[in-house]
C-alpha cells in the first residue's frame, strides 16, 4: 500500500542538477521551483492555468507548472528557462527573440521560450499554423505576439 502523507521527499533533476527536498503535498510545482530551488526564471502570471508564464518541460512534455503539484514530479527531469543558455551562450531561439524584439515587459518570455523550445524539438521547421497553435497556451499582455511569432519562425528556418 502506498503511503498517504501530507509531505514527501522529492528527488528531481532540474536543468541537469539533482535536488532532494521535503515538500508539502499542497505545494504547486511553480512555487517549489521558485521558492525552494530559488530558480525564479519561471514566472507566476495568472495562477489559473491560462497564461503559460510558468511553462516548463517535464520529462520531455510541456506543462503549466501551476497545475501540477511538486510531489507529482518525484523522479522527473525538468527543464526551465534557466537551462536553455549554456555557459552564457544563448540558444538560437533566445538570440532570435533578442533580434526580433520579441519581448516588451518580458514577463511572458520564459513561458514563451519553453513553449517555442518544445515546438522546435518536435518540428524543427514549423509552419505558421504550427507556431500559432504551439503558442496558444501563452498569453502576452503587452500583446507583442507578432514579434514573438517572427522570432520563432526565424529560429525555425
Amino acid at each position: 500500500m502506498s503511503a498517504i502523507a501530507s509531505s514527501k521527499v522529492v528527488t528531481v533533476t532540474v536543468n541537469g542538477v539533482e535536488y532532494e527536498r521535503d515538500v508539502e503535498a499542497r505545494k504547486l510545482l511553480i512555487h517549489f521551483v521558485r521558492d525552494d530551488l530559488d530558480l525564479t526564471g519561471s514566472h507566476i502570471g495568472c495562477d489559473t492555468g491560462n497564461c503559460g508564464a510558468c511553462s516548463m518541460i517535464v520529462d520531455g512534455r510541456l506543462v503549466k507548472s501551476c497545475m501540477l503539484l511538486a510531489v507529482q514530479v518525484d523522479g522527473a527531469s525538468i527543464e526551465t528557462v534557466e537551462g536553455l543558455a549554456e555557459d552564457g551562450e544563448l540558444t538560437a531561439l533566445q538570440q532570435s527573440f533578442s533580434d526580433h524584439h520579441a519581448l516588451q515587459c518580458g514577463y511572458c518570455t520564459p513561458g514563451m521560450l519553453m513553449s517555442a523550445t518544445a515546438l522546435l524539438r518536435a518540428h524543427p521547421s514549423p509552419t505558421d499554423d504550427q507556431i500559432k497553435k504551439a503558442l496558444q497556451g501563452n498569453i502576452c499582455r503587452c500583446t507583442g505576439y507578432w514579434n514573438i511569432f517572427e522570432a520563432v519562425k526565424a529560429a525555425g528556418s
Partner: protein
Amino acid sequence: MLLREVEYAKPATVAEALAILKQHDGARALAGGQTLINVMKARVASPDVLVDLNGLDDLKGIELGPDGTLTVGAMVTYTDIVGSAEARARPILGEVCSTIADVQVRNRGTIGGNVCSNDPTNHLPPLLCAAGAEMTIASEDGERNVAAADFFLGVYLTAVGPGELLTKVTIPAGKHDGFAAVTLGTDGTCIANAAASINGSLRVALGCVDAVPVVVQPASAAEDAVRDAVRGAGFTPPADVHGSSEYRIHLAEVLAVRAARQAAERS
C-alpha cells in the same frame, strides 16, 4: 496560490487506488489536474486526500479491437489520443482533442478527467454521448458499465460514486461523426457545442445548453429535421456574459446542423 492542506498518495495499482478511495471519505482522484488543481486553489473543492492516478499504467492504454471497438484508458491524455494510430479508427476523437485548450493542457489533461469533471462546457461529454460510448466504473465490489447517455447526471456530477473510479471508455466502431462549436477564441472554452454521429440512425448531443448533454435523434441529417429535433428537446440553456439563453438555443440549432452535415458527409 497556496492550497489548503491536503494529503497525497500515489498508488501503483487500481486496487490500491480503490482501497484508498473507499477508506477515506474526503479522498478524490487526481487525474491530469487541469481542472481539479485550479478549483482547489479557489477552494471550490477541498479534498482531504488526493489519490494521484498518474502511476496507474493500466489506465493509460489505447486498444483497437478486431471489430473496430476502441478502448481508451481513463488516464490517456488528449496529446496521447491525438498521436495514437489506434485512435484514428474513430477520427473525430483526435480531431476534437486537438482543439481542447492548448498544448500544455493537452499534455496533462485526460479523457477520464474531462468526463468525470463534467463541466457543461467540456467537449467530450457530448462527443461520447453522440458516439454511443460506454464507461467502465470500478470499485472494490467489481466493475460496471454505464452508457455515456446515462453517465452524466448533473453539473460536475457523474455516475462515478464514492469509492469508485472510471477506468476506461469504450467507443464502438464508426467514422460518420461530426463536431461543431462556438468558442471563446480559437480552441477556447465552448459557448455551445454539438456532436453528431450516424451509426444506423443519427444521434446529436448538444453541449453547454443544460446540466448534461442533451441527446436528440433527428429523423435525418437534413437541416429541417435536425432543427426540428433540437427545437423539440425543450431545454432552457443558462445565460452568462458570453451568451443569453435565447442565443444558446440559436447556436445549438446551428451547431447541430453543422455537426450532422459533417457526419453525413463522411458517410
